[in-house]
């Protein structure tokens, strides 16, 4: 029951995020969707992920998007694609969803009883990160650093090269 409420919340937020005309409203709806998803994670027993979801997406990504919107404010041209391309897009999206839903529906592998709640304590996650996934951790750290520097470099106001 709880799952259905949160799921509906999430989908509603997502739909609002992509369909609203005002970008700031879109971001607010996006935050709603992220929060709903975090709640779903908590329901599924992944507390750490749920909190990470809130911290990263709601706390960082959404704020970043807001900043971007503010920086590109005076664009003035909002709105959807042309009618034809909109129709085509909608058709494709429906097809994709249809196939996915049909696949889930027709799958036989999913019909077994849910196993007991697994343990995913912070300590276990920390141990796994530091022992088994130490190298990917290092790599993702490196990637984040590179992305940080790269983003800063790209977004920096360029100097006039030729006077």
């Amino acid at each position, binding site marked *: 029951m709880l799952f259905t409420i949160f799921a509906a919340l999430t989908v509603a937020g997502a739909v609002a995020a992509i369909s609203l005309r005002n970008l700031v409203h879109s971001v607010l709806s996006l935050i709603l969707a992220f929060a709903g998803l975090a709640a779903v994670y908590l329901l599924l027993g992944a507390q750490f992920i749920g909190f990470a979801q809130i911290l990263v997406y709601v706390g960082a990504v959404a704020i970043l998007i807001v900043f971007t919107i503010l920086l590109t404010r005076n664009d003035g041209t909002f709105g959807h*694609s042309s009618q034809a*391309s909109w129709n*085509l*897009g909608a058709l*494709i*999206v429906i*097809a*994709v969803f*249809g*196939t*996915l839903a*049909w*696949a889930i529906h*027709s799958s036989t592998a999913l019909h077994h009883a849910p196993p007991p709640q697994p343990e995913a304590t912070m300590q276990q996650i920390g141990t796994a990160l530091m022992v088994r996934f130490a190298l990917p951790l290092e790599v993702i750290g490196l990637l984040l650093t590179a992305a940080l520097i790269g983003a800063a470099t790209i977004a920096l106001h360029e100097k006039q090269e030729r006077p």
Partner: protein
Amino acid sequence: MTWIVRNLWLIPALPALAAGLSALAKRHQRRFSASLAIGAMGLSFLLSLCAFSQVMLAIAHGQASRQVVNFPWFQFGDQWLKLGWMLDPLTAIMLVMVTFVGLLIFIYSTGYMAHDDNFTRFFCFLSLFAAAMLGVVIANSLLLLFMCWELVGLTSYLLIGFWYHKPSAAAAAKKAFITTRIGDLAFLVGMLWLFSQAGTLLFYDQGAGCLEHSALTAMVAHLTSIGMAASTGIALLIFAGAVGKSGQVPLHVWLPDAMEGPTPVSALIHAATMVAAGVFLVARVYPLMAAHSDTASVITATTALQVVTWIGAITAVFAALIAVAQNDIKRILAYSTVSQLGYMMMGLGVGGVAVGMFHLITHAFFKSLLFMGAGSVIHGCQEEQDIRRMGGLSKLMPITFATYAVGMLALCGFPLFFSGFWSKDAILHAAMGWSISRVPFYLGSLGALLTAFYMTRQVYYVFFGTSRLASHNEVAPATHAPHSTSATPHESPSNMTVPLVLLATCAILLGAIGTPAWPWFDSFLSGESPVFAFAGFLEHGILPVMLTSTLIVFLGLALGWWFYGRKPILSADRPDALEQLHPGIFHVLQNKFYVDELYEHTVIRWNSALATFSDWLDRWVWNGVVMSVSNLVLGLSWLARSTDTYLVNTSFDEGCHTVTTSGKLLARLQSGRTQSYLRMVGIAFAALVLVLIWSARS
């Protein structure tokens, strides 16, 4: 083995060394080059005397007169090819003759060639020639002999063409080399045959040499497919080499032309030594020539020796006839040389080694004397060689005249006091007793008559009467050197006359070693001690032959006097006395029996026709086949190209067009808009999932 035998190689090596050193000399180092050549030759002469005395001593002590030194040269297969040298009476006498005559001619050349630009080169070639000739003499291997023989031919070529700027000299040099090479190739084949028969080319090798008994017996017994003994075939082929080198008929044509060379060269090479090498070769391989089976009941002359005799006899008369009608002083002597070489061959054929060789030695002295005298005359007359334009020189050049007269009388065989008499007499005597036929004797006698006649003619033309040189110069001063108008003929310098005198002395004295009373030469060659006995004159047939030949000589001299000496010859342009007598015959003789023309129209023309044919074959037949094949290929490729152009290319162009069109269509997809790409991804994703599910189902 004595020191001189072990070091016999020094005799040719010294002149070779001198040749090498003077080849490096600069053009102006004339004195160095000449003294080097003469010094080396002098040393060789001394060594030759040593060798000669060594042989004399050995004979006197009754030891073996032949000593050989053999050494390995190179290996092929499982055997070594050996070369070697030897010292025997034949070698010894030839060594002394060659080095002595050579030395005198070298000295003479310093005077004769004094004004030539290429003086050093001349002495280089002369030394090389001497080295090669001495190599021929000492060789104990047919191969070594052949190699030196070819080198002799090379130096002869170089020296005939010494005045290379004259086209006639260059042509004569080439002619000489090639004509002798024809003979040499037969020689080469003979040598190969001998090698395959005897297994060795050493003449003497302690019983295993190719001239020793066992090899000769085998060769006589070995019959070829045409029924001739191998030894005969080999001997004839080797003799062909001698024919080429010694200017025998039919390969004599080069020798008169060779007179284009400087006169000392003619004296040394084309009179005294090289041309005699052919005679020497026959003498050297005489055991092979004379080899006959032991079983033959009647010992007659072998086929090889018969051929030698006939060729010699014919040459003797043939060349003497031509000599009668020549006007060039050197050409007369050249034909005389050919004729005398014929005598030597005949002597070898009918009488054996000693007879032929004796004439070779005496002839070497008096003929080189004559040539050098002729050189002196030419030198004195500003390079004039035509005897009709000489005359009256006996007073102007007394020493030359005196020595020339000695040489001429020796050549004619003037009785008793001149060496030529004795050697020619020995030949005639042997021919008289030849078992096959008397004809060679008659031919020889005729030759002697002609010799006396043409020599008298020449001497009258050159030395008697009045000088016709000046008158000629008045007639056509432009054709001859203008400076000679003021100069009169003069006597030559002492370095030219002294050798003449020495040679003249020898030409007289040498007769003493071969008289029937004291046949030293004969016994020396056969390795015995000579016995002195006047009884030698009384042997069967000797005195009649001597008388006959004396008569013949006097007849010849008298005829000469009759035609040319009775009335002084007044003008160079008047026809010859013989020409007046019978112009037709005279012209045939003057044109050398048209042998050159005959060769020109047969052998040489055939040869060039073959050459043209071969070139034609190359250009049109072989190349034609290739060209037609390639044309066929070209035709096929043209066909293929048409197919390509009209069939393949057209359809290909169509295909290309389609591709371009569809490419344009496809390019529309590539709009550059992200969203359109993503649409594609979406469709593909859906399709992929469907396909996967469907395939999992089925």
